[in-house]
């Protein structure tokens, strides 16, 4: 059993994130009033910039232009089934944990056209979706979501079966990550080994300190942008503060998943009575699968024009909680909530090991906060691992 992944990611300490072969580039220091320079250079080469902002009571990712739009001093209070924002007088811009979405919709779109078809007298004429996504830079991505992006890449970019839509979006994406300094009560990335610092997969990673930001490159493209800003190297004291911030973010997490491969343990508990106990609470609404950064299920639907001459084939996010997901000729393989929840959890924490070599959970905690009835994955796992009374 490989337990290497189940350590927290601390970049400035001794531990290195899983998959990281090289020591990160020497961090440089960006004073707070120079952040706009970074944003401007991210928006260079015609890129649109996506970043965190407050909308409808949550921190969401959307188009931004100026550093002034970032959620200064905003703090989040999360618990099972609950998410609140609170304004503080902190000057920090990233002192919050993840909102309902971040990267996933940018690479695996909630709805997108895969191909079009036209019917005429000579037959059917299929055309792949040709539109190119706009080049995009995104700032504020956390370690859990970067790890989930690696999982999504493992799924969508399998050799010989690369998904063109996912590939097109990813190719146009420049990722600026932020080390998490203020995890929510629902976070447990330290136990899955996917945070709180940003692991591999970013172009630039940023550590927010009281006095400003430390920047490090994760790709040649990121290095180029950092170099263009001509910033001084971070001081030893700043690096120390970053390491402390990271350890603090790790230590602050109270929830956790067992640091072991749960594959056999969960599959062996297919008939555990606790599944029925969860099903009494679960609404089968699919919110957990929608907010999960690694959930990848989708449905294919035709959208014909009214005259029937043309049609689009649309792919939309689906969920293992839906009827259609396991539908076989009108009779779903999973016809009740117990079986659907079991499918979700065993796939996430057990099936993923067979499919992609690790658990499908990166500890972001969204499924806990955004479950309307506050079902807590970490608690359910603990109950399932107990022998039934």
């Amino acid at each position: 059993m490989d337990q290497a992944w189940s350590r927290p990611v601390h970049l400035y300490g001794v531990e290195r994130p899983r998959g990281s072969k090289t020591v990160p580039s020497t961090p440089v220091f960006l004073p707070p009033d120079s952040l706009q320079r970074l944003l401007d250079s991210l928006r260079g080469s015609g890129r649109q910039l996506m970043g965190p902002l407050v909308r409808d009571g949550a921190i969401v990712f959307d188009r931004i232009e100026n550093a002034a739009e970032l959620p200064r001093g905003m703090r989040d209070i999360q618990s099972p089934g609950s998410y609140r924002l609170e304004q503080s007088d902190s000057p920090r811009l990233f002192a919050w944990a993840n909102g309902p979405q971040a990267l996933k919709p940018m690479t695996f779109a909630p709805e997108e056209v895969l191909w079009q078809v036209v019917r005429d007298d000579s037959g059917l004429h299929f055309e792949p979706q040709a539109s190119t996504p706009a080049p995009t830079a995104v700032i504020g991505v956390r370690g859990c979501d970067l790890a989930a992006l690696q999982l999504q890449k493992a799924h969508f970019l399998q050799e010989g079966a690369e998904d063109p839509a996912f590939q097109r979006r990813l190719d146009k994406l420049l990722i600026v990550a932020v080390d998490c300094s203020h995890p929510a009560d629902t976070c447990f990335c330290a136990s899955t080994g996917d945070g709180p610092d940003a692991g591999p997969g970013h172009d630039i990673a940023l550590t927010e300190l009281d006095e400003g930001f430390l920047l490090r490159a994760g790709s040649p493209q990121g290095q180029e942008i950092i170099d263009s800003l001509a910033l001084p190297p971070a001081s030893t004291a700043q690096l120390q503060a970053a390491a402390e911030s990271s350890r603090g973010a790790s230590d602050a997490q109270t929830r956790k998943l067992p640091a072991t491969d749960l594959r056999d343990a969960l599959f062996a508990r297919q008939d555990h009575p606790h599944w029925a106990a969860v099903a009494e609470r679960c609404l089968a609404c699919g919110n957990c699968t929608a907010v999960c950064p690694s959930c990848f299920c989708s449905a294919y639907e035709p959208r014909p024009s009214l005259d029937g001459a043309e049609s689009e084939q649309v792919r939309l996010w689906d969920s293992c909680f839906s009827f259609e997901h396991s539908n076989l000729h009108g009779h779903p393989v999973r016809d009740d909530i117990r079986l659907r929840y079991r499918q979700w959890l065993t796939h996430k924490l057990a099936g993923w090991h067979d499919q992609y070599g690790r658990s499908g959970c990166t500890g972001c905690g969204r499924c806990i906060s955004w479950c309307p009835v506050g079902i807590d994955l970490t608690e359910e796992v603990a109950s399932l691992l107990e022998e039934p009374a």
Partner: protein
Amino acid sequence: MSRPKLAVHKFSSCDGCQLALLNLGETLLQLPGLVDIVHFAEAGPMDEDEPVAVALVEGSINTEHDLERIQRIRRNSDYLVSLGACATSGGLQALRNMADANAWEAAIYARPEVLDSLPTATAVSDHVKVDLALWGCPVNSRQLLGALRDLLFGVAPREERRPLCMECKRSGAVCTLVTGEATCMGPVTLAGCGAICPRKGRACYACYGPAEQVNAESLGRRFEGFGLLPEDVARRFHFIHSGAPAFQAAGKHFRGGK
């Protein structure tokens, strides 16, 4: 090739679902090229008894005359669609099924005996076979046209079975229940409306009727946790679709005080 005939019938309703057709704009102009509309009182054509391929039926069944007319419509239609909440579950009017209709009539009308009114407001499917139910108060044009297109292709219309939350999340809306303790019915409500209310920060009030899986007990308990009394929870279920069995049972359960 002759175009299939279409009729739009109205029973007790506000006409809002017929507007799903009338509000189509330019798309409405395409319809006559595809179907022959023989009866649509609100739009002009009036030939109620013409046999048709597809009948769209709006409204709930409330009178002796309704009972007779819905049978006639069924006989004259190859394929019958219940259009919207009233036709599909009895709609708002079905709320009176839980009250003493005669007492109300006596209290309101000077001469209640002139009314031709059944004691209950019921769904079309309580009286005749319905081939497709389009939920919603009102239905939306996209679903209606999708169903018509499928019928023109000669196939059964695709039925939406997902809960509203899935559509809401795809739209990028922030969950009002989680951020603000809104008593949002999205988790137990059928998708299809485009998550109009949650996208405006308002709680869904279940105008699309029950989703495929309805865990009313769990959602209701959550609402109680927000401070709702059992009667208030019951009213969340007994509103637009009190006549839908899953919501009927849920409301009774909470009203019964467990």
